[in-house]
């Protein structure tokens, strides 16, 4: 039996998509939920993909959209009055930690706004080019570079602050 290219590519990219989802949300179980939702959407929207070479970016865009949608869904459920509804998903953990408590680069990354986190993840972790990453995030290349620079600057400050035991507040999402 010969697998078709779409499924072969999808399977090959699963670990990368999972890592991307985790770098966005910082929670393993939630990352798997995001990945599952993204895979379901990718299978359902297969017809939208024209060029095989674009599949990696296409899949990562679906993961990113799934993360955004899932975050919005979670914030809706969390806002509901207590006792009136059983949240279908876990609430987003409050990010009260300060940079001085960030013992690793990954923890510092979690303090970044999600748009900067996504830029950092695509470029620094996944090694994508600026154009491909910008298409995935639906921004232009200049915006991407700007977000990336802010993220790196923040991580540098975090590293220094952590070394000195200082306290820096997490970045606010715009």
């Amino acid at each position, binding site marked *: *039996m*010969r*697998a*078709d*290219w*779409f*499924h*072969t590519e*999808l*399977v*090959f990219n*699963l*670990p990368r998509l*999972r*890592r991307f989802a*985790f*770098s966005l949300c910082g929670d*393993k179980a939630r*990352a*798997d939920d995001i*990945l*599952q939702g993204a*895979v*379901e959407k990718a*299978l359902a929207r297969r017809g*939208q*993909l*024209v*060029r*095989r070479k*674009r*599949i990696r*970016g*296409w899949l990562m*865009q679906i993961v990113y959209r799934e993360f955004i949608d899932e975050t919005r869904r979670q914030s809706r459920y969390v806002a509901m009055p207590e006792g009136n509804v059983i949240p279908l998903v876990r609430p987003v953990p409050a990010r009260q930690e300060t940079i001085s408590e960030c013992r*690793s*680069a*990954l923890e510092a990354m979690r303090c970044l706004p999600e748009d900067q986190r996504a830029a*950092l993840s695509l*470029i*620094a*972790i996944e*090694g994508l080019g600026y154009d491909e990453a*910008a*298409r*995935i995030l*639906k*921004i*232009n290349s*200049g*915006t991407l*570079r*700007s*977000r*990336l*620079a802010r993220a*790196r*600057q923040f*991580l540098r400050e975090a590293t220094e602050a952590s070394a000195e035991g200082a306290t820096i507040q997490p970045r606010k999402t*715009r």
Partner: protein
Amino acid sequence: MSDFPHDSTGSDDGTRRGRAPEASGPETDPGLGEQLRAEIDAAIDRDVPGRIADLVRQSAARASLWRRRARFALAVPVALALFAAGWGSQAWLGEEGPAASPSSRAAMIFSEDTSAGPLEPASGAAAFAIGAPPDLDQEGFRLRAVSQSQAHHGVLNRLDYRGPDGEEIRVLIHDRGDGISWPPEQADLDGNPIVFWREGPLTIGVTGTAPAARLERIAESIHRQLDEPVGEALLAESPAAEETIVHDLAVLPESQN
């Protein structure tokens, strides 16, 4: 039609809200990426959850079913045959799969079958010769040697590459495959990291002394070179399998090296 359904670019928030210094490029801070990647890999286990892999596998099986139905117009017999094949392959996966750790799976697939004796040119191995080995020039590795040997349930091709600083990696290609692809997994093989995966009829591994992240990039490069139909770029009919010329390298069965 664009592959990106929302291809329009957004506003440049760097321009509107006070421009931050632009990043000069991913390569300027490779240590940060490597560090984050290593921390993420340590935080999540590498195996993709079975429920997600099953989702893709079931979809692939359905797609395969419909392709075959359309091709042969033998709806019921083909469906029965495919379901039977599906059950068979599940049983086969069970041999090495869920119960075994990635390292033991890698060892099982990529170890030589020492009891099998030398590779016979007239055997089934004749159909499994390397046509075009992966080109890893962009990764800085050049092909140095190719060899073949008998493995468990198939033929194992070993392609040895050397990097600019003398580091060596080995690409292992096993022809035992049933068309059910696996995502890349990281494991240990003989004390070195290995990244291995399956594409259609091939199980491919990249191992060596390089860090796992670099092996993963090489795996990605090999994956990109496998074009549809899967494996055709790598495999070609061998005229005799005694000796196949790959570029300027003589490919001999292991017993003759």
